[in-house]
């Protein structure tokens, strides 16, 4: 009995001079939700593409349910369901026709296929609209069919590449719920996202990626420990950030100050003690603080701590 559904060993992939994936390794246990968290361009999709056998790694290998992505691609594909980042469906076919076609591509035939298509339509809540062409669906409905395709052959492992990008909150909630439901059915889910909240909510384990590398790996709690119990204070001021940046770094209790897009982020041991000092220092420099937000430690803080930049688009 395999313990790990996925074992990634030192994967490398370069496009010309750009190292998209640079020595990535991690393991995903069977039946867990594992998130790859990182900003756009971190190398998440390239990693998923290699694990889906769409791209051949320059170096390294990975095993998916014991099948090598280099030497046993058909074996990998047969245990795998892939939900691509972009909706990959035929708009001029109905949901049922789409599911039937993709079911055939996964080797389903006859009554088994028809029955499974009905089941999946039920799961994604589109039985009533099964005959409508996908082109007429809303973005959220298309996302659901997009996920449904990956479920047809009851895969042991599912890759979901940023499935909530560009959809409304309700559809997003549905998708997050369905990911948990898949886990509950015993499937292993490899989930990529650049939304910290999703990774935090869903994942058993998280690998944080940046510039092609895994920079942190562990459970949510383990990762948060990296930044200790520091609070994150986000502030905006009525002047250039440079006028207070250096002064704030010298304030007692402040561990880190970064500025990005007109917003200053301060990591501090205790925001209650530090905040009055920040106001005082600002006043001395002729700068007024216009907004303040305080956050408990989270993955955003971890990413900020590790890379010195915010985890956002």
């Amino acid at each position, binding site marked *: 009995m395999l313990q790990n559904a996925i074992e990634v060993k030192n994967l490398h992939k370069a496009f010309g001079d750009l190292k998209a994936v640079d020595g990535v390794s991690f393991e995903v246990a069977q039946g867990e939700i594992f998130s790859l968290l990182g900003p756009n361009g971190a190398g998440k999709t390239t990693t998923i593409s290699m694990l*889906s056998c769409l791209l051949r790694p320059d170096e390294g290998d990975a095993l998916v349910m014991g099948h090598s992505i280099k030497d046993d691609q058909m074996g990998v594909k047969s245990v795998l369901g892939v939900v691509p980042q972009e909706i990959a469906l035929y708009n001029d076919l109905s949901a049922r026709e789409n599911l039937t076609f993709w079911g055939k591509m996964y080797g389903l035939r006859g009554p088994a296929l028809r029955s499974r298509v009905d089941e999946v339509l039920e799961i994604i809540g589109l039985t009533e609209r099964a005959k409508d062409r996908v082109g007429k669906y809303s973005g959220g409905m298309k996302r659901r069919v997009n996920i449904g395709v990956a479920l047809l052959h009851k895969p042991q492992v599912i890759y979901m590449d940023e499935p909530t990008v560009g959809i409304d909150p309700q559809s997003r909630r549905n998708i997050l719920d369905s990911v948990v439901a898949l886990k509950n059915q015993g499937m292993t889910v490899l989930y990529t996202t650049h939304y910290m909240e999703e990774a935090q909510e869903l994942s058993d384990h998280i690998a944080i990626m940046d510039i092609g590398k895994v920079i942190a790996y562990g459970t949510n709690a383990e990762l948060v420990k990296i930044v200790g119990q520091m609070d994150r204070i986000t502030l905006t001021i009525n002047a250039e950030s440079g006028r207070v940046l250096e002064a704030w770094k010298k304030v007692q209790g402040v561990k880190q100050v970064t500025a990005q897009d007109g917003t200053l982020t301060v990591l501090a041991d205790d925001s209650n003690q530090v905040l009055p000092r920040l106001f005082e220092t600002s006043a001395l420099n002729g700068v007024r603080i216009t907004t303040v937000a305080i956050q408990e430690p989270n993955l955003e803080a971890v990413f900020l701590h590790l890379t010195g930049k915010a985890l956002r688009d």
Partner: protein
Amino acid sequence: MKILDIAFKDITRSFRSVFAVLFMFVIPLLITGMFYVMFGGMKGSDTGFSLPQTNIVIANLDKGGAGFDTVMSQFPADANIQSLGDMVVYVLQQDNLADLMKVTLLDSAEAARSAVDTQEAGVAVIIPADFSANYSNLNGQAVLEVYQDPTLTLGPAIVRSVLNQFMDGISGTKIAVNEAVTQTGSSDPAFIGQVVESFLTATARTRDPAALLKVSSPAATETEEIPFLLRVIGPVMGGMMVFYAFYTGTASAETLLQEDEMGTLPRLFTTPTTQATILGGKLLAVLLTVTIQVAVLLTLGALIFGIHWGSLSSVLLFAAGTVVLASAFGVFVNSLMKSTKQGGIVFGGVLTFSGMIGLMPVFMFGSPSTTFDTISLIVPQGWAARGLFQSMQGATTGNLLLTLLVMLIWATVFFGIGVWRFQKRYA
């Protein structure tokens, strides 16, 4: 099995596209239909071209003149020709002009002009009283008056052409007589009669085009029995079919690029389906789509326009060659494209331009031109058109097989390069 699933899916998608159906079937039929309407009526009522008959009124006021015995002898006795004016009337009343003009004789110039003014006639020919006399007089000038409806063009032009020819003839006779009289100094009517007779005998052959032109035709074939309309419409319909079959081949093969951009092709590659099966299914769809298009257009061409494409075996050979070549060409062209954004250039430029070159012989309407035929063969559409003509003209199987062989060589090269490039791209 998966290969058929992929092909069936692609064909379904193609035939659900209104745009594709328009280009595959409607436009070729519509263009052919336009030619059909332009060149004649519907099947079964075809009688070829006909010009409207022109009503001509002639006021022959000619009172005759001396010395016409010899000339009169050139006309049948029952024509009862007494003057040069009678000859004009006789010429215009000939049977071979009866379809083009209806001649009515009137007594006066006024009545003739009035008939034109009231549009009862299109042309009035007024032969003056001194017409023969002026002709007989060596220093005189015989003049005809033509009075025509200014709104008409073709009918009066034909009448003028006939009269000009007649006047050229009698002018030649007069010049010959003048020359003979000047050279001999004799104005003896018997001598003049001899000169006229000699001139008419010498020029008789030139008045008959058949004597100057050797007109020959190929040995009797089925095409001789095909009306003019269908001889024009057949190649037009066939040409449209070839032209749009190449469009369909290219458009169908473009689904490879479309699916790549839509993300469905990469998704297919994540399923347990081999690359060869996926590409094979896509290419099979191209082949089947073009096959359906050609089969439907051949059938509809025969049913709607009554086109005779040739014997069954030659039609099958031509159709197979066209389908394979158009499909392979589509795969090749798409393999050169980086994305569907280049489709406009390919469809608007490459396909249209090569199609126009290849189909030049079609628009010669059966007037063979070796130069155009040769130029057309530098593009694949030219070979498909050649196969079409050979089939329609009842060429031997040997000739058709030779054309088919060349088409298959083209297709093999196109297909080979196209598949190689696609495999390399998706490796």
